[in-house]
């Protein structure tokens, strides 16, 4: 039988990843428009550290999810909503991995190594020379480089994830306050049995 709630480990992972996504997204949006300063360099480093942390936590979370069944959805939930919920979760998991990876690739393509917490150097996935490979030269003054493509991919996937997260939050609140079912309750720590 499925449990009523997610396990404590799953909740801890969910909420810490949620917090890190907001922090990483906020830092990313802020840092790109900042004028060059020590703080800007720090923001870039923190943004990268957050991305790597999310990647690691989500990898662990995926293994946890596959070995610990998720609590059942209410039987009242229509089939199409189950389907949308399933695929949007799959998409979010895919982006949790793809976004840090493209960020790391982008950093490598600019010739800047990534050092987790300033302590653990990660291997460079690309060289700066590879990043400078010209993909499109419609404007010879400003050709479109491989590093530009990676940046675009990183940015687009972030906006896609941002939309999915908003949908996720919106759906959770709708179920809790309008449908008054127990979908959100499954991810909130509380008493052992359902009232």
């Amino acid at each position, binding site marked *: 039988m499925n449990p009523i709630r997610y396990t404590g480990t799953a909740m801890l992972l969910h909420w810490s990843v949620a917090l890190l996504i907001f922090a990483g997204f906020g830092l990313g949006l802020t840092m790109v428009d900042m004028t060059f300063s020590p703080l800007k360099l720090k923001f870039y480093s923190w943004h990268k550290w957050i991305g790597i942390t999310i990647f690691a936590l989500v990898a662990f979370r995926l293994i946890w999810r596959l070995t610990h069944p998720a609590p059942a959805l209410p039987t009242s939930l229509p089939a199409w909503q189950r389907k949308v919920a399933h695929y949007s979760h799959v998409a979010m998991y895919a982006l949790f991995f793809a976004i840090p990876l493209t960020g790391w690739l982008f950093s490598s393509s600019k*010739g*800047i190594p990534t*050092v987790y917490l300033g302590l653990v150097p990660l291997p460079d996935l690309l060289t700066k020379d590879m990043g400078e490979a010209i993909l499109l030269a419609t404007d010879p003054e400003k050709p479109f480089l491989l590093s530009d493509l990676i940046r675009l991919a990183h940015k687009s996937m972030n906006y896609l994830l941002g939309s999915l997260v908003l949908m996720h939050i919106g759906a959770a609140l709708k179920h809790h306050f309008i449908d008054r079912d127990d979908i959100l309750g499954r991810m909130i720590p509380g008493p052992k049995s359902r009232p």
Partner: protein
Amino acid sequence: MRLFAIPLFAALLPLAAEAQTPATVQMDKSFIRFVSKQLNVPVEGRFKKFSAILSYDARKPEASKVEFEVELGSADLGTAEADTELKRKTWFNTDAFPKAKFVSSSVKLLGGDRLEITGPLIIKGTTLNITTVASVKTDAAGISVAEGKFPLKRLAYKIGEGQWADTDTVADEVEVRYRLTFSSKK
């Protein structure tokens, strides 16, 4: 005896003359790079414009002389905003101090192909002695390659002042790596 000595001496002359001619650097086979640590992340930059001359005699390495000049405004860190930043007053202040200059004052043979080169390095109006160990290889075609590195304390030269003086963001020590290829052909 006399008959022998003159042609031998004459034969040695062009060799000696060739060795004394300062050789100029071949840009496509040379580089001057610098590695700074930003929040403990090693970031490599390079200078696109520099010049160097070498007077090197493989038989008398201690009489060698090395000079180089670097156009500090040609520093390339990979991003346009970092390159612009480096030209500013707090960094190289390239308007007032466009060039870095080094002239060797002593060259010691350490053994093998290794030379210890010492001399004043001038950056941003500050002159400090630096020492570097270079490996110098010369091939039959008269091409000499000098390769080595040396540490440099950026704050001693006031490179990165004000908010950038904080070494937690950018470390004080910067490693300069060079490979200079010289052709002695005239």
